[in-house]
């Protein structure tokens, strides 16, 4: 009999595209095809991702249209407390709605992909409702540690932050007392204590959470798996290799402003740049205006908007280089995997998950994070160094396949199920 695994995610990629949800949904689809596993995908919907409410009065969890194993969760009101990651008043979301769903489904494993807008309390409810069921939690960024959208970037000067303490956090948020941050950490850790296994897709992320207090042995270091894309025809491009692309979310932490300023610094020598960006509309007005002004003042830029995840390879094959100029640490950016799948070298910031996944001089080029001049120099070198593109392309590793990734995860699931069963016996 197939094991039931429930993935819980803060969003469905069909509602809004986003890295973590795209990956989680790919995993779900892979498990759906695999023998021995019967997956269910529960994603939160409603504001801010979607204006849609629950289709059936009194049923806050409903199937996604056209699927039997995907559900959307619609909280009755948008009562989410960003600071503590919990519903302020509507705890019934957990003790009522989620509890009933879990009892109806009775999964063998519960895998939280993300609890943003749902709340860490969902972990507690899962533990109470199904005490024998292992709980897995994937860490996608630093949100449990950092109140600044989980980026670990100081609000004071946008510099990278390496350590969250109540005092430092209060420096970033002067209206919030240090003691509140202490309480935040204690509250989230109280819920995390109930998790059997964490998954970290990068060593950068794992080490930060070990420092934060999660025992190392409870964190599985496992790169995201990606669905196998059909082989690209004509992925080789003859010289000159002078076209660049940036892909993914457009927000203040993704560094598109650094890239546009680098393009301006290159002036008439600037190569062609294609921007495939999503979710700019969700950003604050000041940032949207800043990007709009930079786009208007930069030559050679084509702005193409969002792209469906399944067409990422095709889009990347249309450029020579993929640029990942994020000004936060990043975890394990899917866009790097997509670039490597399309056999495109990556030019990226020299920190965190980017520096971990892209090796400078082997399969990409590093530049100083947040430094347009350094990025401009990297672009110049990429365009003008004969044979560099071919050499870096040779160094691109095979992308971790979803099949292998799922094998690692399901092996871990089995171990956890056995361990839980042993505890109960």
């Amino acid at each position: 009999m197939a094991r039931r695994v429930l993935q819980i995610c803060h969003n469905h990629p069909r509602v809004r595209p986003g890295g973590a949800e795209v990956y989680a949904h790919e995993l779900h689809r892979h498990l759906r095809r695999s023998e021995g596993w019967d997956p269910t995908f529960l994603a939160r919907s409603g504001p801010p991702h979607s204006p849609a409410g629950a289709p059936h009065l009194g049923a806050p969890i409903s199937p996604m249209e056209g699927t039997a194993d995907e559900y959307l969760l619609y909280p009755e009101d948008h009562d989410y407390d960003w600071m503590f990651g919990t519903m302020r008043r509507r705890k019934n979301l957990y003790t009522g709605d989620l509890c009933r769903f879990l009892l109806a489904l009775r999964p063998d494993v519960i895998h939280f992909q993300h609890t943003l807008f749902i709340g860490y309390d969902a972990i507690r409810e899962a533990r109470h409702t199904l005490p024998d069921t292992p709980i897995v939690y994937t860490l996608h960024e630093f949100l449990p540690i950092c109140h600044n959208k989980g980026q670990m970037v100081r609000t004071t000067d946008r510099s990278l932050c390496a350590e969250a303490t109540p005092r430092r956090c209060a420096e970033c948020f002067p209206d919030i007392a240090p003691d509140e941050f202490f309480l935040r950490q204690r509250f989230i850790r109280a819920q995390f204590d109930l998790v059997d296994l964490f998954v970290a897709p990068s060593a950068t992320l794992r080490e930060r959470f070990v420092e934060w207090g999660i025992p190392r042995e409870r964190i599985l270091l496992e790169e995201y798996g990606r669905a196998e894309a059909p082989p690209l025809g004509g992925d080789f491009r003859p010289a000159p290799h002078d076209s660049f692309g940036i892909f993914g979310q457009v927000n203040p932490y993704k560094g598109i402003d650094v890239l546009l300023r680098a393009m301006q610094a290159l002036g008439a020598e600037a190569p062609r740049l294609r921007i495939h960006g999503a979710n700019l509309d969700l950003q604050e007005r000041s940032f949207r205006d800043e990007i709009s002004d930079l786009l208007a003042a930069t030559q050679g830029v084509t702005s193409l908007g969002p792209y469906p995840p399944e067409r990422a390879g095709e889009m990347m094959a249309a450029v020579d280089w993929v640029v990942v100029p994020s000004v936060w640490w990043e975890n394990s950016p899917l866009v790097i995997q997509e670039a490597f799948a399309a056999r495109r070298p990556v030019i990226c910031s020299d920190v965190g998950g980017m520096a971990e996944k892209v090796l400078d001089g082997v399969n990409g080029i590093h530049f100083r994070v947040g430094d347009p001049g350094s990025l401009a120099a990297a672009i110049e070198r990429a365009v003008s160094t004969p044979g560099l593109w071919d050499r870096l392309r040779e160094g691109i590793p095979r992308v971790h396949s979803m099949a292998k990734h799922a094998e690692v995860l399901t092996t871990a699931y089995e171990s956890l199920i056995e361990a839980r069963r042993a505890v109960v016996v």
Partner: protein
Amino acid sequence: MSGRAAWLCDEVLLVCEPGDRGRIVALPATDSLRAEVAERLTDLTTFLREGPAGWDAAARTQLLDHLVSRGGELGLSPSLSDGLRRVRDALRERRPLSLPRAGGPCLAIERLHRIDERSFYVRGRAWDEAVAPVRLTAITAEGERVEVGESVSPHPAAEGGFAGLFETSFPTCGAEGWVFEAAGASGRAVEAPASLSPDPLRTIFADAGLDFAGAEELRERHLRPAVARVNELRRSITEIVEIAGFGQGPTSPAVSLVIPLQRRVDLIEHQIAQFAADPEIGECELLYVLAEPEQSDALGELAAELFALYRLPLRLATLTAPAGLPDACRLGATLARSERLVFLGSDVFPDRPGWLQAMSGCLDADPNFAAAAPKLLYADESIDQAGLEYAQGPAEGEGRVHRRLRGMHRHVAAADDGGPVAAVGLACLMVDASTLESAGGFRGEFGLAEYEGSDLSGRLAAMGREVRYVPEAELYRLEGLGAEPEALAEPYARWLYSRLWAEAAAEVAG
């Protein structure tokens, strides 16, 4: 005018008895009186204009005195108070409004607080060309005149400053409509309006912190009685109005945790999130005491949802009126099912399980050990207190309660030494109910948890019992979560503490 009548309020009629200058009486509006005066009724303004408004000042004052007195006899209601105020405003002798630098006496009322039904605390300035006014009079909204010049003491805030507690003979209600009069040496008088301000203890504690020649008199004559009356009044109206139970706790709990909730009632969620991982808590009774009844509905809902989520049984007692920490502790303790009590602040969170066992083990180790307190930490891992100790206060002969090892790192060697300490505070205190009762409970006069705990510790020591610091029990105390700033109340608590223990020492010596 003779024989006319008018409504003073819905329940009381003013009636002018027959005669040349008919005596005016205030009478309850019985059916028979209503019928009797029905043909002679007029409105209050006309009644006053045609009669007493034309009398001389002495006669009008006499009438006002009589009506205030009758108001007290009849039972002062808001509508009667309002009627009396209208009569007062029509008949009283008015003085020029005090205007600074106008020459002659000047008067300004900075604060006027109700202490209880007939006690008030006033702070202001009255001056007359550098000479103190010869007379200072308070006039209540209903018209009672109270000479307060003899009652008040000098206050150092400004030239001519005064402050003090005074009493009215009759009850007065309403926050508006007070008038103060100051008469100078020249015989000229001025007046200044005043209205009641909220939060008398804030003013009193601020005045208690002043350092000047007359400070001792102000504290002894005015501040201490005022605080005592505020607390007495609070206690008289504060009781448990509702007990809500969520889940079934142990029938014979090892320990009852009494946790007053003030201001930040949302902290209950965070405390329960921490308790949930502690197996010892499952053997205990959780007893939250809501000291701010206006938050009762919201907290009741939250408590129900938290029980559903965390499955940790608890009881929630709601008080009838806002209460201070010691009173909330006292009332909570009356509900405790266990002989062993822990008083715990809602802003205190255990670092890890085992703290209850460590503290209980300490008390069980020796029958002479009366109370135990843990190591309390700040969020930055420094020590908030490792028990309390006494230090010399700023004034001679004045003691200050000092948090032992405050500011040192939690792992400093001195913090690892458990044993007897001079005192323990209320932020986290384990004591048996019988011990607490034999020591006389909490005094409830200091306004600060540390001094309440020190006072209790002093009484336990006087009984030959010991209070202990238990370093193995470590909890965080997050003062930054909206707790009342302690600095304001500290000078008063320090002074009272020194005063009381000096009295006790004198008694022993005598």
